[in-house]
Structures are given as structure tokens and as C-alpha cells.
């Protein structure tokens, strides 16, 4: 009898734990925006190609000796403006883009945005 009570208690505890875990999971949507880092170092964007979800934030950190910028390449439709050595700049990724440094035009990078349903 005592043993079955113990067993029942154990299952009750386990159920409560599973319930709690489910609660926590459901309160955190799977498409929560994430933060990604692109380092600017030795005249390169690293990583050069970055895959993100729509709405994610991309932070560019200039760890180089020189001033750089991040500029949309095809039409120059947006730019970070100069990012000094040791500084950073962030953007929210809404669509895939080819970008470059307009100061050092051979420095290029790409952000590929995966569209999130319902956004």
C-alpha cells in the first residue's frame, strides 16, 4: 500500500514537471528573433554569408584597424555610415541582401533571410 502511494506521488511529481516544462516552452515562440554577429576583421566580413530568420538582428562589430561600413550593394539603398574601429552597428534583417563596404569596395558579404510564416 505504502509502495503504491509512493509510486503515485512520483508520477504526480513527474506529471507536474512535464506540465511545467510544456508551459515554459509554449510561452516562448519558436520564431523568437535571434541575434547574430558579423565580425569585421582583416578586411573581411566574417562570416561572409550569414543565414538568419526574418526579423533577426545582425550586429556588425568592427574589430579591424580601419573604418568600414555596411552598404547595400546593388542600389546603395541603405548604409550603416562609417563604423569606427572598435565600434558596432546593428540592423534587423527583413530580406536577403548583398552588401559591401563602400570604403573598401572589394569587401563583400551576404545575408540570406529565411521567411518566417505569419510574419
Amino acid at each position, binding site marked *: 500500500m505504502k509502495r503504491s502511494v509512493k509510486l503515485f506521488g512520483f508520477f504526480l511529481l513527474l506529471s507536474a514537471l512535464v506540465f511545467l516544462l510544456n508551459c515554459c516552452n509554449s510561452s516562448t515562440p519558436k520564431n523568437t528573433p535571434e541575434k547574430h554577429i558579423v565580425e569585421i576583421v*582583416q*578586411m573581411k566580413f566574417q562570416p561572409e554569408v550569414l543565414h538568419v530568420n526574418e526579423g533577426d538582428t545582425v550586429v556588425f562589430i568592427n574589430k579591424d*584597424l*580601419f573604418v568600414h561600413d555596411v552598404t547595400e550593394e546593388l542600389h546603395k539603398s541603405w548604409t550603416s555610415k562609417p563604423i569606427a574601429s572598435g565600434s558596432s552597428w546593428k540592423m534587423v534583417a527583413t530580406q536577403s541582401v548583398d552588401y559591401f563596404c563602400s*570604403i*573598401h*569596395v*572589394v*569587401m563583400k558579404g551576404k545575408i540570406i533571410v529565411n521567411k518566417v510564416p505569419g510574419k
Partner: protein
Amino acid sequence: MKISKTFTNTFSAVFAAAIMLSATSVFAQTNPKLSDPEVASVAVAANQIDIDYSKIAKEKSKNADVLQFATTMATDHAAVLAKATALVKKLGVTPKDNAVSQKLYADAEKTKKDLRAKSGKAFDKAYIDNEVAYHKAVISAVETLLIPETENAELKKLLQDILPALKSHLAHAEMVQKAFNSK
């Protein structure tokens, strides 16, 4: 073309001298060819010379690509100079004038005179051709002469750190040069 040739000749002469000195020092078992203060002086000269060229380009050119390139050269080489100046100050090293830096300055004077004598598209082409040749020569000098000659680890690291920028400058200059040649 004449200007590019001058630079090729300058660095050929510098390397020939360096090789001769190297051979001499190896046989004599003496000190390295260039001391750290001399390496610092050559690095300062190489940066200052390209800043001087960019000033001429800003005065004479009306081409947007040339002007943008010249601005980048002025900004980046000034940044290198500032880093180098701060480092030699920290290390207590005083850049020491030497045969290599003197030859660089002397040849740069000739090149500046040639550039100033040109105008319009002829100037733009001469400036970019010279930048391509100059960066090739400087990259080679940094890789095969300055870095191996440098004893201080921090000075060596600074030279290694500026190589990617020099290579990016060369690729940028070649891009502008290619656009000129295809027109």
C-alpha cells in the same frame, strides 16, 4: 607606365641592395640588414608617400572612382601611421632614416613630378597604374623584407596586420584600372 616602371625599378634596386646586404651580413655573421628603427622608418615612408599621392589625386582628378579610392588611401594610410607612431612611442623606438627610406622618398619625388605634369584621363590612368605598381611593390617589401627583418614582436604583428589592407587596396586599384582599360 613610366611611373609604374620607376617603382618597379625602385624596389628592384632596394631588393638587390637588401640581398647584397643580406649576403654580406650572413657571411660576416653581423646584425640583420635593417634594425627595428630602420624598419619603422621604411614603414612610415611607404605610408606617407601614398598619402602624398592621394593628395595630388584629390587636387587633380574629377573621376568619382579615383577620388573615392584616393580618399580611402588617405584614411587608411593615416590610420596605419597613427598605429605605427603610437607603437614606436610605446616601444621607445625612434624611426631611423636609412638607404631604403631615402630611396623611397627620392623616387616618390620623381613620381609626384610626373603625376603633376599630367591632367584629365591621362592623370587618372597614371595615378591608378602607379597605385597598382606601388601596392604590389610595398606588399612584396613588407612580406619579404620588413617582416623578416623585424625583431620586435609587436612591430612584426603590426606589419602582418596591415598586409590584408594593402592587398585589399591592390584589388581595389586593379578594379578601377580594369574599368579604365575596358572603356
